[in-house]
């Protein structure tokens, strides 16, 4: 019931926002109210969520298209609960940011953002393969318009590239879903057995690799993350990319153990290559968003390393790091947006020396930067450490590449920090002042959550999979109930 509510509340809020002829302010207020209600719902649900249970929780199931064995079936395990939590928190922050900046055509805008949040929750809560696909595709509809209408000057190219890449991947996945589901006679994830068909497996893999994105499927990334409004970029990099994590952990690993075994090497090499490539490119980008975009890609590569190591440490680390990266990257995109509106540009060459007289901005950028480079003691460090230990068991080479990437992360993060805060290159940066209350209220909650996770990373890692045994849990799904 709660899961259904979590899906329906944002969608209902979106409908209200579209229908009610309210002023810009009240529309934004209503949207924020919806998003906060969603966070409250999630937090309330967390109190009764039994993380040690083997059972799916808050599940709901309804007949929908019984001729094909498709049902509306949702429910949550621990790791899904965290991903949903990430969605609702980032969604609320994004709507808050939009409210702070003010957007043209507010009714359409907030409605679409809420719709996006609702479909993301649906993606993470699906227990039916086809329902998953429905939400997976449904989230493209708002993204297409959000980027294409409210984005920067090259928005139309950005949005077309994004949609074409994603649809190419997901239509292949649709073919795979049909082949897999029809041959098994059901689309219910719990009832689906395993398949050893490499082609079906590849259909899923490509879709998720485009979404993550992994090399060489990342062609859409730079433009979308740069041209979208900051809050949409925050959702894109923070949450939408995690749909790939969910798909791999909950669809690919349990149902394709054979192909995963066969092609693990390929996936790990791609992930490692993505990690290095993204980090190097992040180091070379001329603007804030470029750095975050490619750093985001690199972090997804790291998460993929964790997933494809297919062991307890790697999977726990992948989930924790997904949450970390979602929060950090969303926070960074919002800060990038704040800097861009304030100083008229996100180009590093035109920024610099912002630390002077702006302690709050400087602290926020520094803290987020520290999380990005995974300073020991941060939750990102915990995540990366778990992933690297996990992948080490698959081959020390991957772990070595991963460790090298941490150094690269330090390089681009420190370059970003110093370019924004310290270098004295800029002339256009005199007038604007420090972060004000409203902006802090957006960013600080994200930082606070990161701080809590830093103090207690086991909150996520020990509560993602029943009995804290990801591999045996996933393997248990193979046999069906």
């Amino acid at each position, binding site marked *: 019931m709660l899961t259904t509510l979590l899906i329906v509340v944002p969608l209902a809020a979106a409908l209200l926002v579209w229908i009610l002829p309210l002023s810009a302010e009240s529309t934004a207020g209503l949207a924020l109210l919806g998003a906060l209600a969603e966070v409250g719902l999630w937090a309330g649900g967390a109190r009764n969520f039994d993380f040690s249970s083997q059972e799916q929780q808050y599940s709901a199931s309804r*007949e*929908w*298209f*019984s*001729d*094909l064995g498709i049902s509306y079936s949702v429910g949550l395990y621990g790791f899904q609960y965290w991903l949903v939590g990430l969605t609702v928190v980032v969604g609320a922050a994004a709507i808050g940011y939009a409210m702070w900046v003010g957007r*043209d*055509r507010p009714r359409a805008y907030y409605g679409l953002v809420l719709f996006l949040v609702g479909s993301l929750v649906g993606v993470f809560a699906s227990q039916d393969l*086809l329902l998953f*696909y*429905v*939400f997976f*595709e*449904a989230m*493209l*509809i708002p993204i*297409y*318009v959000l980027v*294409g*209408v*409210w984005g920067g*000057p090259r*928005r*139309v190219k950005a*949005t*077309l590239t994004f*949609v*074409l890449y994603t*649809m*190419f991947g997901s*239509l*292949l996945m*649709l*073919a795979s879903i*049909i*082949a897999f*589901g*029809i041959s098994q006679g059901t689309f219910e994830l719990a009832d689906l057995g395993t398949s050893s068909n490499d082609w079906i497996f590849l259909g899923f893999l490509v879709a998720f690799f485009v979404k993550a994105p992994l090399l060489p499927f990342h062609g859409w990334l730079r433009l979308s993350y740069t041209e979208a409004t900051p809050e949409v970029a925050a959702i894109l990099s923070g949450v939408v990319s995690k749909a790939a994590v969910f798909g791999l952990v909950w669809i690919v690993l349990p149902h394709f153990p054979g192909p995963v075994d066969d092609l693990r090497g390929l996936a790990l090499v791609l992930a490692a290559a993505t990690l290095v490539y993204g980090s190097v490119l992040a180091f070379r980008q001329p603007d804030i968003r470029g750095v975050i975009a490619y750093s985001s890609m690199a972090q997804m590569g790291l998460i993929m390393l964790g997933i494809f190591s297919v062991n307890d440490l790697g999977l726990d680390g992948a989930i924790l790091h997904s949450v970390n990266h979602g929060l950090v990257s969303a926070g960074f995109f919002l800060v990038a947006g704040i800097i861009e509106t304030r100083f008229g540009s996100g180009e590093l060459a035109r920024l610099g020396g912002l630390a002077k007289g702006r302690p709050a901005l400087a602290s926020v950028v520094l803290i987020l930067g520290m999380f990005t480079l995974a300073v020991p003691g941060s939750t990102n460090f915990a995540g990366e450490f778990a992933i690297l230990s996990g992948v080490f068991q698959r081959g020390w080479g991957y772990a070595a590449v991963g460790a090298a990437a941490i150094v690269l992360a330090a390089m681009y993060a420190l370059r970003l920090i110093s370019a924004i805060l310290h270098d004295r290159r800029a002339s256009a940066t005199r007038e604007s002042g420090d972060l004000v209350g409203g902006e802090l209220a957006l960013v600080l909650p994200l930082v606070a959550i990161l701080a809590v996770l830093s103090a207690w990373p086991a909150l996520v890692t020990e509560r993602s999979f029943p009995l804290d045994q990801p591999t045996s849990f996933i393997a248990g799904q193979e046999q069906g109930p």
Partner: protein
Amino acid sequence: MIQTPHVDWLALSPTLALLGAAAIALLGAVTVPRPALRAFSVAVTAVGFVVSAVFAAILFDRSPDPTILLSEGMTRDQLGALAAIILALIGLVVVLVSWGDGRKDHVGEYYALLTASAAGMVFFVSASSLMTMFLSLEWFSISLYVLCALDTHRRESLEAGLKYLIIGSFGSGVLLFGCALVYGSTGELGFSAIKEATGADDPLFVTGMAMILAGLAFKVSAAPFHMWTPDVYQGAPTSVTAFMAGATKVAALVLTLRILVTAFPEQAEIWSIAVAVLAVASLAIGNLAAIAQRDVKRMLAYSSVSHAGFLLIAIAANSDDGATSLLYYLIPYAAATVGAFAVVASRERELGRPVSLASLEGLGWERPFLGVGMWVFMLSLAGFPLTGGFLGKLFVFSAIYEAGWWWLVVIGVLATALSLAYYLNIVRALYMRQGEVSPGTVVAAGGSPPRDLLLDAAVAAGIVVTIGSFFFVQPLVDLARDAAASLPL
């Protein structure tokens, strides 16, 4: 004492209701004074379509088992009844769209012909002999030829009418020749009698079957028999285009399905490959050509060719699921197509010139309701979730996968990916502008015509069916399954 033959009036009632309405509308054209003529014709034909749909629904309810009537002339079954319901509802929506078309001449004739054509289609989908099939095909086709050319002051309309007449007649000729060959080799006209009589390896018989399929493919506008489609769709009055794209396709596909599975089940091996080839050709040509179009009606014409491809895949499956998925697919397809042409018609009336992609620019902001409608229709035609178009494609692909033709699924999926290029291009035109324009700006493109409530109602109906068929898929599929059960599959 003269023995009167038994007439099953109920089976004929959907057709007769439409014929009656057509007759009254035609009488009205000469008797009702000009100022009241439009209101009179719209009222009469709208009532005719509603009554026809109601009769068809009753017929659906009371025909659990197929019965053959009129000495094998027609079949009373749920397949025909369901198709009749869909056809009548399409006609009703088209009447709503036509209300504001500003037609000065031939008002009464327009509505009379529209209704007569729909009556022909309603009869056509129940036809069960070569003779009635051909007669009712000509019945609705001739009405359509005239409808296409009805805007006598526009050259494009005349051109469309002439083209459709010539190519349509050629198609009919092929069909008739095929019927003659089949009759010649079997000596039978009735579909089920042909099945009993077959000498399966008779080359004349197989040639006849191929020619019948080709003749029907003209009406389905499946490639490579689609050449007339873009020109005719573009030139014909937009409401007529809407009717052709929606209703003709429904009628022609339902009958193609019926004749193939009732008359030629023994040759399924042959025709399912032929149908699959037609499907692949339609998918390839329709989608590739649509990408290059700038005129929206022309683009939608090629889109309808590509959908003929998807629908033929369902026929190629030659299974119960295939027939069910065909019937289900037709519902959101017809709703989205007719709705999209309604939006185009509205823009055309506003601007007073043909609608190109450029002239859709900003429509989404200027006319939010029509914009949302167009958006929904494009997403449905492209097969996005939350619209019936998605489940239709899914169902068709499942059916063909179960029939063992996995490569058709791959082709269908690739075609869907290709089709996004032009469907999303329309959405782009509706909402997005290039360059440094803030989304707040409105570019006024034309005048502001008075709000056309009936057209809005038509678009609303399209939206409701398109989205409703996604959420309430199972009840519709149950209906489609019942209807498909009246076929010997």
